């Protein structure tokens, strides 16, 4: 593919200037890509962009603070980088961004669901992209899937497919899928009554195994080893296997991301038991956008919860 070659050329061009270029390579099976850390031209030749380049490479940037790195970014990845920059968690001069027009990425849960009786994802031996279709080979047969049916939800409402911050942009910018976020996913959820929502979380969280994969996949969770989930002082959570504590951790995670979460969805993708943990963050993002006209990673300026104005015209305080 043209795009692949062009990106590889751009990566090779910048390699001499940086410690490392972060991008994607092939993963354990044809349906999965994986992060790739490129330090040589050989590494660059293994670079693979496209439908399976799902991971958010911004996750690794804070660890490289103090070193110069380049990173290949989808539009959503660039938002994470933008947020890290506005919080001063990484330095602009230490990061070089290579952007490209992202055509959307896969949602593995949808693929698994689409395959259904036909087999497991692990049994897929080859994948071919033919226009709007994916042609999978498994158990000796070919299965055609409509790409649109197995594309990640975030791509279906994507407003920023072209990395909005990029030092090098490869290819022609594409039209965004949407011009505004209508938070339709929340509307679906909110069709439930309050009681039903509470029951929903109770049921969902009962599956949680407290693996913290959600947290570890989040490019903005910079506390890492010092997360309050496991600290003794302060001791916000017990280690008990209770729905209360597990839900509370999700609330903590979401609250810590209020006004910061860019909606990359890595937390939810990383969840091994399929809990829709992104919902809480989406709810907060909606509030923050409505109250402070702020979209994390896009809008300049101090994140809204780290600042204030004397009058808050959008906040309707209780009359009493």
């Amino acid at each position, binding site marked *: 593919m043209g795009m692949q070659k062009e990106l590889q050329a751009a990566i090779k061009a910048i390699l001499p200037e940086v410690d490392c270029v972060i991008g994607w390579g092939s993963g354990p099976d044809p349906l999965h890509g994986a992060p790739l850390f490129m330090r040589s031209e050989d590494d660059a030749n293994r670079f693979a962009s496209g439908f399976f380049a799902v991971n958010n490479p911004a996750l690794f940037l804070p660890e490289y603070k103090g070193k110069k790195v380049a990173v290949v970014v989808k539009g959503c990845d660039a938002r994470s980088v933008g947020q890290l920059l506005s*919080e*001063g*968690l990484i330095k602009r001069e230490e990061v070089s961004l290579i952007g490209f027009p992202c055509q959307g990425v896969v949602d593995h849960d949808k693929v698994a669901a689409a395959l259904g009786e036909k087999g497991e994802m692990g049994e897929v031996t080859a994948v071919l992209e033919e226009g709007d279709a994916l042609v999978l080979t498994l158990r000796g047969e070919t299965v055609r899937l409509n790409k649109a049916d197995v594309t990640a939800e975030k791509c279906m409402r994507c407003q920023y497919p072209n990395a909005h911050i990029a030092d090098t942009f490869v290819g022609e910018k594409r039209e965004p899928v949407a011009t505004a976020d209508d938070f339709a996913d929340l509307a679906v959820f909110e069709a439930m009554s309050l009681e039903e929502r509470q029951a929903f979380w109770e049921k969902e969280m009962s599956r949680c195994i407290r693996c913290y994969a959600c947290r570890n996949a989040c490019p903005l969770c*910079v*506390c*890492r080893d*010092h*997360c*309050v989930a496991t*600290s003794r*002082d*302060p*001791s*916000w959570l017990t280690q008990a296997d209770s729905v209360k504590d597990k839900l509370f951790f999700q609330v903590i995670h979401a609250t*810590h991301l209020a006004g910061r979460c860019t909606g990359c969805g890595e937390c939810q993708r990383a969840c091994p038991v399929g809990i829709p943990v992104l919902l809480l963050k989406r709810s907060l993002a909606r509030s923050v956008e409505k109250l402070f006209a702020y979209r994390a990673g896009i809008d300049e300026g*101090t994140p809204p919860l*780290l*600042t204030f104005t004397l009058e808050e015209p959008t906040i309707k305080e209780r009359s009493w």
Partner: protein
Amino acid sequence: MRIGVFICHCGSNIGGTVDCKSVAEESYAFPDVVFSTDTMYACSEPGQQGIIDAIKEHNLSGVVVASCTPRMHEPTFRRAVERAGLNRYMFEMANIREHVSWIGKNKDANTNKAAELVRMAVSKLRLNRDLHSKSFPVTKRVLVIGGGVAGIQAALDCADAGLDVVLVEREPSIGGKMSKLDKTFPTVDCSSCILGPRMVDVAQHPNITLYAAAEVESVSGYVGNFEVTVRKKATYVDWDKCTGCGLCTEKCPSKKSFDRFNEGVGPTTAIIIPFPQAIPKKASITRDACRQFTKGKCGVCAKICPTGAINYEQQDELVSMKVGGIVAATGYDLMDWTVYEEYGAGRYPDVITSLQYERLLSASGPTGGHVKRPSDGKEPKNVVFIQCVGSRDVSIGRPYCSGFCCMYTAKQAILTKDHIPDSQSFVFYMDIRSPGKGYDEFTRRVQEEYGAQYIRGRVSLIYPKGDKLIVRGVDTLMGGQQVDVEADLVVLAVGGEATQGSPQLAEKLRISYDSYGFFMEGHPKLKPVETNTAGVFLAGSCQGLKDIPSSVAQGSAAAAKAIGLLSKDMLASDPQIAQVDMKRCVGCGKCIQVCPFKAIKEVDVRGQIKAEVIETVCQGCGLCNATCPQGAVQLSHFTDNQILAEVEALCRF
């Protein structure tokens, strides 16, 4: 940990609606509680001794007292546990009086609530740690804001005690409202004869620096070391050169300026010395009235001034200083009575304010002490005084009693008779409030000896008829009888209000003010001159309207507090401040971003950026604590774990 619990009855204040004994018994079930008892008055000497004895006898390592609000007696009990050898922070209070016994009627519910509050306090205490203060040096200088009688008293007392004093006055002369009064109640002695010498003392005291025609621009810092900037407003006269000879005021051709000192009774010149006894006795130009400024030419005063002190180019000047304590004594203003349309709203020249009447009575006033009514200069015979104009009136948002009007009205009625022997005074009043020493006797004298007619009722309408004013009122003691008085002069006892700009000053000083702009004292009884901001004290009417004796008393009281504070060379800092756990800090800088006091700085620890709290700057608000995602910054004595323990203690059912 070994915790002792003391449940105070506070006489019947708590004991009346809380079963203190059963709360004490229940407290034994709380974790780590090894001793629990009820006590009649925990704050009394035997009460405190009981706590001390129990600490020693039961080897207690922490104490909970359930009694009144910690805003009242927390320091008392902290000292008590300290006397018993514990760290003062190994102590918690449960507020079972203001928050329980005084607001709930159901004894069972109150008892239950009291026990839960004790449990909450115990849960927190279990996580308390010994805390130790740091000491820092203080600046032995006091700022007094406002040069009325309260401020003068505070300034002189502080200065006499050896402190440096900076006195800032907004007007060109000190003296305040008292300097405008003719006589004072209940002695009917001359106001300026009492105040004048005190004003001179201010001018001559070596320890006092006076800035008149100046205002406080900004305040920063904290108790012991405030940074204050004062704006000296341009007077267009170089006061170093001005001798106060008054030649300029005689020659000034602009003679229609509003006379602030004389409350607008008669006009004055554009360049003025406010009154003969002014301190400092210096001239200043009212810019809006001066022809040099309004018309661009005149210059008479500059030509005539023998010392060449006039300077039309003068600019405001900012002066900065460090002070250890601040006394606010900004006084009051009369409210704008023209909201009373039924009294003419200012349309009738012979309806005047009490303060204007003082100027008419004063021998140094514009009429030389002859009472002449403004409309035609005639001497009035029938003088009507109306009380509670702008006081005790919910309809105009002033429900409070101004406190001094009953007395000054009685005084003015007496003075009226003294000045005009064939006059008759009529006083419309609602209630006579005269609780001071010799005050009620005074209000009797005005009726019995001076023949003033006191009519209980409000006045509904004043209207002119010929050269008289018809005052339509009511005599409620005659059962609601309508009455008319044909008056020559009507004097309104206009109520007071917090002086203009009070809320703005309160914000600069970071002290609270009530909905009327009066500054809030620390406690209505026990801290009447302190504020909740350490090092800032209150004197006079800025805290609530009061008469001269009370203002002077409060001025001295505020001075005593300031002197006490600055008698020490070093002050102990509050150890309830934020601390960073360096191991857990990831250097994200969010705490630095939000700190209102710039009390957190970035430090480099072995190549890694970390946050560090500057201990003497931190004020202990805990904003950083609430901001740090991983809780690496913790506010001592209000840590996450302590608050979580309280929440858990309350929600465990």
